[in-house]
């Protein structure tokens, strides 16, 4: 194999490795943001390294989807996979369907990661999925988030 070919392989491998550098890329819920983020009836937010009303996030991603059963099912399936290895802080099940799930994911390096999911039906079906990365301990962050209300 000549030097050029070896260099090219090395370059492609390097690019491949760097493309998966985001911490949420290993999660199924990243597909939700990809598939539904820019659609009608959807609000998607991405904040990075921002101080948001007292919260310190290194990454905040949220998606709110209105009146979309298919999306809700898809999110629940993704969450079921991401639950593996995560600590389930809260789960509310209504008629056998999880409508609220809070997950503390295993720490990745020095990054704490949280997934929050909630579904309401009144006045309309509204699904909210939030993914948070923070240097702050995820338990403290969770307390902060829920007390802010």
């Amino acid at each position, binding site marked *: 194999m000549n030097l050029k070919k*070896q*260099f090219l392989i*090395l*370059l492609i491998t*390097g*690019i491949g490795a*760097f493309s998966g550098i985001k911490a949420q890329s290993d999660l199924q819920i990243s597909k939700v943001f990809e598939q539904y*983020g*820019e*659609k*009608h*009836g*959807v*609000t*998607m*937010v*991405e*904040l*990075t*390294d*921002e101080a*948001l*009303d007292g919260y310190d996030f290194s*990454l*905040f991603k*949220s*998606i*709110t989807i209105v009146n979309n059963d298919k999306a809700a099912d898809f999110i629940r399936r993704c969450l079921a996979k991401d639950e593996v290895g995560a600590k389930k*802080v*809260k789960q*509310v099940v209504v008629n056998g369907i999880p409508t*609220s799930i*809070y997950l503390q994911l295993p720490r990745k390096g020095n990054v704490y990661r949280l997934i*929050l*999911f*909630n579904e*309401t039906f009144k006045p309309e079906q*509204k699904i*909210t999925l*939030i993914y948070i990365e923070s240097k702050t301990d995820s*338990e403290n962050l*969770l*307390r902060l*988030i*829920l007390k*802010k*209300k």
Partner: protein
Amino acid sequence: MKLVKKHKMTFGEADALIEKYYDGFTTVEEEKRLQAFLSQNGLPERYAAEQAIFGYFKNRKSKQAFTLRPYLKWAGSVAAVFVILVAGLQFIQPTYASYAYVNGKKITDLDQVKVQALNSLNNVSGKNNEVKQTLNDITDNQLIKQQLDVFSGSGE
């Protein structure tokens, strides 16, 4: 066909060649013959110095086959690729940009983006005491204490 008879070097010829070698007048062919002679086993002790000299050169040549140079070259290439990638990514994706999409429309105004973020946080924030109760169960220490209390209570 011309037959070439292999001539075995005598000690006298070897001595003469060694002297010629030290004088710097030997040809490549003569040095090869001398090397072949010195590589023999059971030579008299007086050839030890010359054997060491030729042996040293032989060893050095064989060691050169395992030099680190090609590996260092590769390490340099890898380092260069790494630096280029990091630098490139810094230009392409300096940070995650803050933005929002509302009904497919992109918003980059940071204040508006933050408002949307707070709205989504409000959607998942607890609306009843159930959440607070759940949070109380987060700490493993508390959970363990509760479980131990159950056991200590059953023993009474």
